[in-house]
């Protein structure tokens, strides 16, 4: 076996290895392009998170815009806090009155976070981004004296809806039946 032939065959072997890695990285795993996007973080307090898991998707109308980064118990209030990693392009777009709820996909499916966004007003978006606020008199929020802020990194979502727990639902149903 001359050495040139061996070199070619070894080159083929290494090439196959690299090709296999590329295939696994791009075709099998979600990373590569989508996995390492820039995100910003929001926190949300819930009463009960059901069986929400870290890495669960965060959806707006079914479209994934981020993933659950971490779940922990608030050290003073003892309620679960979920940190959300959301795509950077949505930073300063949602108002702080945005509602977030824990939903279930299908009957037995995974739980995910559904966001029903309230779009932040022009002026609060600008102040959130650190730009000079262009004065506009026709801003409805300011007319009614409501002060809404746009959500940026580290903010807390207040309007949350907990997961539905089947036992509680059944309990409530039986209680109502008994009352009739």
């Amino acid at each position, binding site marked *: 076996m001359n050495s040139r032939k061996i070199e070619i*065959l*070894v080159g083929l*072997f290494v090439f*196959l290895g690299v090709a*296999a890695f590329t295939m*696994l990285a791009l*075709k*099998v*795993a*979600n990373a590569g392009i989508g996995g390492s996007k820039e995100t910003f973080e929001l926190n949300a307090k819930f009463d009960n998170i059901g069986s929400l898991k870290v890495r669960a998707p965060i959806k707006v109308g079914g479209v994934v815009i981020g993933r659950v980064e971490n779940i922990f118990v608030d050290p003073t209030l003892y309620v679960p806090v979920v940190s959300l990693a959301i795509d950077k392009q949505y930073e300063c777009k949602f108002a702080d009155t945005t509602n977030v709820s824990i939903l279930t996909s299908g009957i037995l499916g995974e739980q995910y976070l559904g966001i029903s966004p309230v779009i932040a007003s022009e002026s609060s978006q600008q102040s959130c981004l650190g730009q000079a606020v262009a004065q506009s008199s026709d801003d409805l929020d300011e007319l009614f004296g409501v002060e809404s802020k746009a959500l940026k990194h580290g903010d807390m979502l207040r309007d949350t809806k907990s997961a539905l727990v089947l036992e509680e639902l059944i309990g409530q149903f039986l209680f109502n039946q008994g009352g009739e």
Partner: protein
Amino acid sequence: MMDLFQRLGRTTLDKFAAIGRATQMLLGSLFNLPNPRKGFPLLVRQLYMVGHQSLLIIMVSGLFIGMVLALQGYTVLVDYGAEDSLGPLVALSLLRELGPVVTALLFAGRAGSALTAEIGLMKATEQLSSLEMMAVDPLKRIIAPRFWAGFISMPLLALIFSAVAILGAHLVGVDWLGIDTGSFWSIMQAQVSLEKDILNGLIKSLVFALVVTWIALYKGYDCIPTSEGISKATTETVVHSSLAVLGLDFVLTAVMFSN
């Protein structure tokens, strides 16, 4: 009674001496590389022997293991109407466990035993001593290229194994059993992560490569230089490295995948 203690002590000391010799050999070959210009052709030759020649067995067994996983997974999942989850089932079990472990076991049988037998015969026919007589360090010239060849080829082989097995599962699951090809890939992509699954599997196979190649080379280098000794060393290589791989796999899995 004294005799028993004597034998016990001798065996223990022998084991420690063996570990010491093995470590000496490992360090001697790792940090004692021949210069790149002379060493590289030796490495390429060993990559051919150890890596390229193992390709066939790795790819064929990968294909069949992927196909079997898909068949078995399908029969269970279809009862729950969850046959679309076949993709992540196959991909995760391959990338995390089967890819590195089965590759290491096959590698121990295919390449490890060959390394032990080759070096054992070199020792029996006194080729290693003659190298030393010519002031060539056998660790440098014989052991180091083989060690690095094993260390480089095993992760590549494990990757090829997983890739071929996933294609085999696709063949059975999508082409024969009729799972939708789009959901096969997209659910797989949603569940498998590059850092957590693929890179951890790669780290596993690097550890296995180190252990299997080390055991194979040490058994050959340290064997009793008779035909009986070589046969014993070859058997020990396969048995010890298979057990070491399976044991280490449990430890690594416990460290990597338990949150």
